[in-house]
């Protein structure tokens, strides 16, 4: 069966099965390997994408449910030479250890800051509550999101969006 969706601003038409998860489609059909599979059960947040403006566990979305959806993955934020301010902040705060959870963390941070540009630490923790870091490097990840909030406030507008 065929579905049409927009991924990182680009419209794609894809042949899928009901057993294809959005996660498989993004990684295997579109090569967007920034989307990670951790638990496969919606508990770890490594497969997080922004779907129709909301954080979504892509391992829990049957591909046909993504028909007509708008998806943003970490590849849609910045490039290696031109990082998104949130990605910059993760580098500067030293928030990355093994890195596996980071694409999901970055997207959760972005979704939070889109809605709430000046979050408190508590709000950051709540915003990231669906993402697990098994290196347990939460302190610096939270620092990174707070730092990103400051950066974005100085820039005034999110130009990489």
């Amino acid at each position: 069966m065929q579905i049409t969706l927009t991924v990182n601003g680009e419209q794609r038409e894809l042949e899928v099965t009901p057993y294809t998860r959005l996660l498989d489609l993004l990684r295997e059909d579109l090569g967007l390997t920034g989307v990670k599979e951790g638990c496969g059960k919606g508990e770890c947040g490594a497969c997080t994408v922004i779907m129709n403006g909301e954080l979504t566990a892509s391992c829990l979305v049957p591909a046909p449910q993504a028909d007509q959806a708008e998806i943003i993955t970490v590849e849609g934020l910045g490039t290696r030479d031109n990082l998104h301010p949130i990605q910059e902040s993760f580098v500067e705060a030293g928030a990355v250890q093994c890195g596996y959870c980071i694409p999901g963390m970055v997207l959760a941070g972005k979704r939070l800051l889109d809605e709430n540009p000046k979050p408190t630490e508590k709000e950051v923790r709540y915003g990231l509550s669906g993402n697990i870091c098994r290196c347990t490097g939460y302190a610096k990840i939270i620092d990174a999101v707070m730092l990103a909030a400051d950066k974005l406030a100085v820039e005034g507008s999110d130009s990489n969006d």
Partner: protein
Amino acid sequence: MMRKSPMKQESRQTISGVDFKEYFQPESIQKALEIRAEYGDQIEVAAGSTDLLVANYEKLHEIKYWLDLVKLDQLKKIEVIDNELHIGAMVTHLQLMKSDLIKKNLAVLAAAAEDVGSPQIRSRGTIGGNICTSSPAGDLLAPLLSYGASFKLQSTEGERIVKAEEFFTGPKRNSMETDELLTEIIIPLTDNKREGSWIKVGRRKALVISTLTLAVVLEFEGEKIVKAGIAMGSVAPTPVRLKGIEAVMVDQKLTDLDYKALGREVKASINPIDDLRGTKEYREDVAVDVMVRALKEIERKVSS
């Protein structure tokens, strides 16, 4: 045959390019009901899929026929009709916690929705899915019982309204027939002052299946309680409404009640089991404490 490297995971994806005639994504309720009538218990109904895909991942069962309700926009509305709140079965937890109508009129339900899973789960999981999965630990279920909610079940034959407390029949079991779909949740509104409390006990703050939940909703005329709704989750084979305790509280002044005694009543009314989220004994003891805490919280809200 080449030996697979132990690190390489087999693709979970079945071969693409087949035309899947077993997957239905109807755009009208009528069409959905016709498919449901034709396939009955053979077909798996997909709402937000947050439970369905976990079960599928763990290969608890194979899904052959899918009835995906995601395109039924008619079921994604929250509206007031004749002093009742009508919530479409496909309304997500995120919608519930953000809706002004829900926050204002059903604060306990909004609070419970906010405690479901994680942001990633709340954006997909639905109220209808929570109800039809019928887990005793479903977070929205105790609040729905406390508010005296009813469920509208439709089939090609017509529709019927079932009270929440008559819907749940066992762990993951309910009284829905195999040709029916849950389309709406109906909750009466009131002009009386309504105050409530929601308490979820779990091992973490996020992404946790409840060890125990309590939803208390009290309606006041002046200082007198005129209606009480008390329900709990994860303490019996189904979410339970504690009508005996409600009856004790009606016509009383809240501050005249002995909270601790009511807590002990709660403990005596539930039937929890030992499982990996907590023991029977733990749940019984916590039940007393959460009841006292909930009533104190309502007392504070009423007096402020």
